[in-house]
């Protein structure tokens, strides 16, 4: 199939459809709405299920119901809507049914604004809903990657009976870029053996998240944890740029990683031996890979469009072995490559520090006061 100029949100929607999506439930919210609108147009014409729900709470529970039939199902939203979905996500995770969620993040907290941000890292990667559960979180930096990761999200969700999230910021959702869509997969005609589809000719299936007996609940938690260990072992994804001889490492995901790459290129042109590690799976996080970099990297710089949410995971991976610096923009402001270049130059000049918390040092640089 040829490359064509595609808008992020629409490309994701069409990729999901071509991955055999059977049902979509969503609610309008900027900067995700084109995704819902694409589904509204395409799903009914293909004879597949589409409902504009009464709320994100409704949407996620429709997803929950459809997921219990074993159908390929997804929803999409943006930060405030995702907050509302947290109840459903916890239930879906606990019931061990596969579902895909696309989060096109915007500025927050609260109603915030509709400009691009990476404000949902914590609520997606570190839970948000109640209880111990993990979701697979994939963060694209280009529209092609958004397409590919959307398709992958369905396969991973089903393989592990888990929630898979495609996490991107509003700029990627809104931008247009040449990319290639996958071929149309046929919609699956069969349902998995565990699904609730009517007990014709078999024992009944019950899908629930209650284990009233604490030892049983603990057992269910252990089952989820073991599956998560399997996911951690098999599904870590990241991309490295200019890393062969890098003595300084920038870590950034999604659009922040993309902007950081421009900065890294400029720094290389200045002769600074800097590379970029762009986590693609934010969950499972490339912890081991970052830890291994401590052998040769002198210092790390984390770049995000939030106040340092992934920063904490990088710090855990680095574990105090090397200094970690942070640079972030918030509230819907995107960083410019020049700003990041300035930070890289500081690293190269040996200004990275072990003292205090990187966020505090960054704030101090930002405001110039204590």
């Amino acid at each position, binding site marked *: 199939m040829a490359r064509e100029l595609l808008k992020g949100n629409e490309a994701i929607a069409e990729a999901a459809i071509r991955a055999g999506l*059977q*049902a979509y*439930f969503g609610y309008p919210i900027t900067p995700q709405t084109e995704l819902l609108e694409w589904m509204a147009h395409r799903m009914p014409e293909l004879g597949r*299920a589409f*409902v504009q*729900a*009464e*709320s994100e*709470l*409704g*949407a996620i*529970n*429709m*997803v*929950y*119901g*459809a*997921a*219990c*039939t074993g*159908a390929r*199902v997804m929803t999409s939203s943006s930060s405030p809507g995702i907050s509302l979905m947290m*109840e*459903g996500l916890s*239930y879906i995770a606990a*019931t061990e049914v596969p579902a895909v969620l696309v989060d096109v993040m915007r500025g927050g907290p609260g109603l915030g604004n509709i400009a691009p941000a990476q404000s949902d890292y914590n609520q997606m990667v570190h839970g948000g809903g109640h209880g111990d559960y993990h979701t697979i979180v994939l963060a694209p930096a280009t529209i092609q990657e958004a397409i590919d990761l959307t398709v992958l999200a369905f396969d991973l969700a089903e393989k592990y009976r888990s929630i898979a999230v495609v996490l991107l910021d509003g700029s990627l959702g809104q931008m247009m870029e040449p990319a290639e869509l996958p071929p149309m997969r046929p919609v699956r005609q069969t349902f998995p053996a565990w699904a*609730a*589809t*009517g*007990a*014709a*000719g078999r024992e*009944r*299936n*019950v*899908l*629930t*998240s*209650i284990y009233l007996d604490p030892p049983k609940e603990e057992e269910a938690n252990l089952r989820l944890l073991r599956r998560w260990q399997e996911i951690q072992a098999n599904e870590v994804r990241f991309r490295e740029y200019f890393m062969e001889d890098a003595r300084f490492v920038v870590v950034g995901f999604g659009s922040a990683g993309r902007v950081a790459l421009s900065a890294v290129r400029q720094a290389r042109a200045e002769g600074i031996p800097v590379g970029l590690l762009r986590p693609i799976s934010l969950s499972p996080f490339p912890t081991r890979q970052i830890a291994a970099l401590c052998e040769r990297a002198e210092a790390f710089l984390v770049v995000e469009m939030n106040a340092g949410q992934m920063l904490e995971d990088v710090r855990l991976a680095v574990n105090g072995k090397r200094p970690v610096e942070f640079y972030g923009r918030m509230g819907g402001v995107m960083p410019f490559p020049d700003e990041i270049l300035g930070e890289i130059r500081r690293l190269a000049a040996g200004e990275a520090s072990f003292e205090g918390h990187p966020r505090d040092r960054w704030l101090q640089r930002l405001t110039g006061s204590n």
Partner: protein
Amino acid sequence: MVVEQIVPEEIVYQRPRSLVECATHYCPGCTHGVAHRIIAEVIDEMGLREHTIGVASVGCSVFAYNYFDFDWVQAPHGRAPAMATGVKRVLPDRMVITYQGDGDMASIGMTEVVHAAARGENITVFFINNANYGMTGGQMAPTTLPGQKTTSSPHGRDVELAGYPIRASELLATLEGAAYVVRRSLHDPKNIRLAKKAVRTALEVQRQGLGFSMVEMLSICPTNWGMSPNQALQWLAEKMIPYYPVGDYRVSPSVAQLKV
């Protein structure tokens, strides 16, 4: 000449096939059990056991799925109609029912049920109105009567402070997407039979794809009402029915023509 021949006895009534062979966790006399039984009977009579998916709610009936011998899923508090929508849209030829208490459906889940009805979602809601939150120990529900004492309205529901009870059937009946919305009561044999008939009609409405259907059933909670089961039946008849009259609140023209 008429010859009368007495043949050995036959079974007039036995436990429906769609009920699992296990004791329930409901308190003695709780009419959740009666609602379960008549739903199971109708599902047997209509031959739907293998084609039905139940959506359990949060409340005393959270374990409904342990008692009905067909496929079930279990919804977060109040979200059963949304979950049922998800199931039904993927499997439109299956029967999808929700079973919800009054706290679940008329309080935390009011949005979900109103919109499922407004969309004409082809599902059936069984709504158990027992005028309190049973499972959490008898707190005030949106259906608690004015003056009724509960653990969170210890001096009786004060409408100045806590507002008025919601008549869910009347409210949903205003929606065009609702095809069949009725209220029945489970307090005596005659009313139980009428409730069963309504359950049958509601499922027939769904089977024929006529739209949203709901059967509200007035039910007793002897434990939290602090009465014996037989006293509770009487309280229901005397106190609840005047506020929640039994009747048909919406029967769409296509449903009116149904022969059940």
